């Protein structure tokens, strides 16, 4: 018998909180992006936990789709970050306050 699901959910909540705090605290755009990935992974852990708890494979399928969306998001987001840094090297999130480059 494996660990009770509540431990996994608690761990996922802790990971999500760390990611959210990091997103609010850090100024580097890349690190903020990594914090978003952290939050996505916490949500994935919750999905898989409920898939096991409810004995339903649909939770794992949802994680599969989350992975694909995360990959697409990273590709486009990093493209935006590259074009931002190309115009203003060393920009932080505070410097990007106007939509015009």
């Amino acid at each position, binding site marked *: 018998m494996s660990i009770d699901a509540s431990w996994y959910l608690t*761990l996922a909540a802790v990971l999500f909180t760390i990611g959210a705090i990091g997103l609010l605290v850090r100024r580097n755009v890349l690190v903020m992006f990594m914090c978003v990935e952290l939050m996505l992974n916490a949500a994935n852990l919750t999905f898989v936990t*409920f898939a096991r708890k409810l004995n339903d494979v649909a939770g794992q*399928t949802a994680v*599969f789709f989350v992975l694909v*969306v995360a990959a*697409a998001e*990273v590709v486009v987001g990093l493209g935006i970050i590259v074009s931002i840094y190309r115009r203003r090297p060393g920009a932080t999130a505070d410097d990007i306050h106007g939509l015009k480059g």
Partner: protein
Amino acid sequence: MTNLLVAATIPDAITFAVAAVICVVGALGVVLARNPVHSALMLVMTLFGIAVLFVEENAQFLAAVQVIVYAGAIVVLFLFVIMLLGVDRREAFEREPLPAQRPVAILLGIIGLAEVLLLARGRWPGGARSVSAALGTPGDNTRLVGQSVFTTYLLAFEVTSVLLVVAVVGAVVLARRPRHAPGDEAGPAGATTEPDEATDGPEATDPELTDSGPAEGEGDGTAGGGRTRDGELAESEVTSS
């Protein structure tokens, strides 16, 4: 902790504890490391810990995908961007435009976490156990996930492929330097206008250079992309040194 040990066998408990510690330490490392490269490596640590937890939770296929896609592709992409842009210097923590933001953010996060843990204390939301799409035995995992993706969620799968195409096109468009914009001719420095004129040279015989941009611009953009990227590398080396 006694609850943990009563409910589970010892190897499971040890695996969970070790993976959980790895995950939390990695997550804290992502947030606390000042160098973005260290943050990315700490992110790999967290992702591996979560992959271990996936195996522990009978999701072997997702564990493999997690390692391959996240640690193998996404973090490598992050590292590429960090190194190519030359932003791997330390963040200036001293200059705080909004001094109250950090304590307030930490307080808000801790309040939210405490709220979740207190409200759900002992009564995590449950639900009826599935009767239609059972998880099966560990050896069945990949087959069951595949069956689920290609039958029940086939439409979502197709939409996902559209999303990937859109992402690829968006990345290509974002990575191109906009050369046909009217104000850009005078904008860049001499080092970048030189290669642009060189690539424009053969095309200059074409009378409608600016109008026929998109079709010819594609092939030309890739050729010019290599040159401008070299120019950027030189720029970033100059700024870092």
